């Protein structure tokens, strides 16, 4: 096993990797930007070195600087975390050439799977289903023939488009020709490029991914699936495992396909195969050639430490057969953002109280006094629960979210609470559109209590705007009337 590694990342994931490394007796070298001098990933590390100014291009993306530090500190390996350099084939190659181990797949696998078009080709070659469709063609008859083959409904999409623009749904063959003309004209108008391609329309699509782990000796195991359909702005908010939409037969087929693809590409280490699932069928979307943010829900169910497995495999060991999964796990991502507009929220963490108790895991790198910086991702923490079954896991997550306190910035917690209370989520029958039009009018009693609390705080003079000013603290003037009053009333 490695004696010392460098973790080329920051914040929560840097601390996550560091914790496992320490528990394995591996020394940790941290790197940091000027904005992160007081970060926990720096303060808890065995060694720490400055990279440069806050912007990622001047700090966490400076591969050559990171390699210099790695060599000065004589580390054995570099763990890239996720984001930053984790899917950069050039960096993986440079680490290799420096005689160090890159904790991740070979550069070639990163390149082949990192590109959407080439990874789709790999999937097709490996016999893994992709969303059926046809490449852009100016001739509507070519596409119509393909549409007949796939079966209606289909989508026509602008080749130059993106972000949901220039998409036209075609329910039946009779609508095709007019829809094509319309789509081509809209594409021409919006993007100056009239090319249109064809894709099967997926009804109520869900985003489900399979965790894989492969070694250099040809071994490959999978750890079931994660359901990631609760998204806003194309970013995941709540994940769960297992997926309520996946039965044992579908799971077996998806795991088999994921394994086939992983082996086809000469993969090593941890990876995630993302699929769209619709009406009992699954379609390859992309592969993430690194650890996933939501890896923890898999860890909780399988009793596995995926970072430890990454390190073992990078050191040349073989994969281990997973334990039987148990229970149900849910993750909520806690971002610094307005819970309604999802606009980032900056500020200083003034108060932090993390939830405790059984089946609750809090993965974060935040602390009282942390200034939430605009330079990096807005994720503050991940709250993960495990319980015997889905119902208990939902209840436990709500209990833990009620205990959690983060003051100083707004967070996505209210949005997550909203989802977890909703009938759509509780039924398990939801898809990627769940956050659109979710309604749960708040109880009047809660609104009244909020008003009463605000009025009482103002009555006591506690509502002083200046956050530095000390306010009289209550809690000692005890009113023992509640019990007495009631007792006397009954007695």
């Amino acid at each position, binding site marked *: 096993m490695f004696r010392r590694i460098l973790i080329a990342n920051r914040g929560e994931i840097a601390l996550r990797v560091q914790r496992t490394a320490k528990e394995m007796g591996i020394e940790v070298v941290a790197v940091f930007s000027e904005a992160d001098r007081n970060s926990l990933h720096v303060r808890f590390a065995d060694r720490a070195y400055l990279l440069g100014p806050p912007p990622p291009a001047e700090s966490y993306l400076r591969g050559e600087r990171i390699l210099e530090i790695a060599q000065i500190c004589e580390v054995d390996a570099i763990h890239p975390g996720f984001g930053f350099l984790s899917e950069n084939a050039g960096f993986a190659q440079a680490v290799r050439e420096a005689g160090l181990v890159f904790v991740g797949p070979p550069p070639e696998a990163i390149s082949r799977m990192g590109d959407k078009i080439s990874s789709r080709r790999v999937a097709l070659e490996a016999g893994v289903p992709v969303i059926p469709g046809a490449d852009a063609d100016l001739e509507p008859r070519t596409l119509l023939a393909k549409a007949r083959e796939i079966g209606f409904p289909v989508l026509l999409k602008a080749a130059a488009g993106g972000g949901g623009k220039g998409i036209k749904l075609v329910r039946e063959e009779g609508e095709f020709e007019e829809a094509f003309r319309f789509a081509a004209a809209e594409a021409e108008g919006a993007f100056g490029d009239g090319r249109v391609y064809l894709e099967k329309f997926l009804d109520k699509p869900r985003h489900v991914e399979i965790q894989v782990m492969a070694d250099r000796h040809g071994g490959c195991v999978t750890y079931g699936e994660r359901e990631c359909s609760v998204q806003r702005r194309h970013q995941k908010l709540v994940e769960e495992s297992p997926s309520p939409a996946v039965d044992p037969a579908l799971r077996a087929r998806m795991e088999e396909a994921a394994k086939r693809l992983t082996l086809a590409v000469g993969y090593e280490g941890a990876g995630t195969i993302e699929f769209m699932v619709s009406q009992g069928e699954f379609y390859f979307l992309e592969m993430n050639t690194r650890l996933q943010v939501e890896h923890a829900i898999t860890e909780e169910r399988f009793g596995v430490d995926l970072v430890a497995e990454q390190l073992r495999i990078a050191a040349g060991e073989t994969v281990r057969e997973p334990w039987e999964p148990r229970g149900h796990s849910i993750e909520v991502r806690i971002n610094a953002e307005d819970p309604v507009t*999802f606009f980032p929220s900056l500020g200083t963490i003034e108060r932090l109280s993390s939830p405790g108790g059984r089946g609750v895991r809090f993965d974060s790198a935040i602390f009282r006094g942390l200034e939430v910086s*605009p330079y990096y991702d807005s994720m503050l923490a991940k709250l993960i629960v495990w319980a015997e079954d889905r119902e208990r896991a939902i209840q436990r997550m709500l209990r833990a979210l009620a205990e959690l306190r983060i003051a100083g910035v707004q967070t996505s917690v209210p949005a997550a609470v909203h989802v977890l209370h909703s009938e759509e989520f509780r039924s398990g029958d939801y898809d990627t559109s769940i956050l659109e039009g979710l309604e749960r009018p708040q109880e009047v009693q809660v609104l009244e209590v909020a008003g009463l609390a605000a009025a009482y705080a103002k009555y006591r003079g506690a*509502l002083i705007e200046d956050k530095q000013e000390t306010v009289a603290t209550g809690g000692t003037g005890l009113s023992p009337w509640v019990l007495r009053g009631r007792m006397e009333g009954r007695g």
Partner: protein
Amino acid sequence: MRYFVKVEADGRRIEREIFFEKEGDVLMAHLVRHDEDGTEEVEVYPIDPCLLEKGRSLHLLVDGRGFDVYLQPTSKGNLDVHYKGDLCHVEILDEREKIAQRVQGKGGGTDPEIRASMPGVVVAVEVQEGQQVQKGQTLLVLEAMKMQNPIQAEADGLVEQIQVKAGDTVTGGDLLLRVVPA
């Protein structure tokens, strides 16, 4: 002293008038609701409050039922009240402030200066000087924390001045543009 609160959460909104009175050792909270037909309903609860963390955290026992909230003053002088992970927005005025507001008229209107609330890069400017805009219309898009954040008009108005262009780097507090409310 009476307090006038407007509370909003998840699309529901209530208004109440609240005051406190001691009855012996017990603090009584009076919640007054003005119905549409002009009638006034009053609910009275004995409360046992416990303020913590310099007034930011409050536990209320209302007739034996517990409510643990924390309070965050927001930039507009209002309050965010957090309860069990949920969030309520509260506007609160006491009698004096209420009178002062009536005298001033409807609270002074919207600030024409739109400033960057955080450092970032201007990705797109979607309006031109002299253009009429509507409340909620996107004026420009600011990229910060890896996200594209639309900056929207707070009220209907006229774009008087644009201080930035696409590609500009701004820091928190920088003036982006001026929109004179209609």
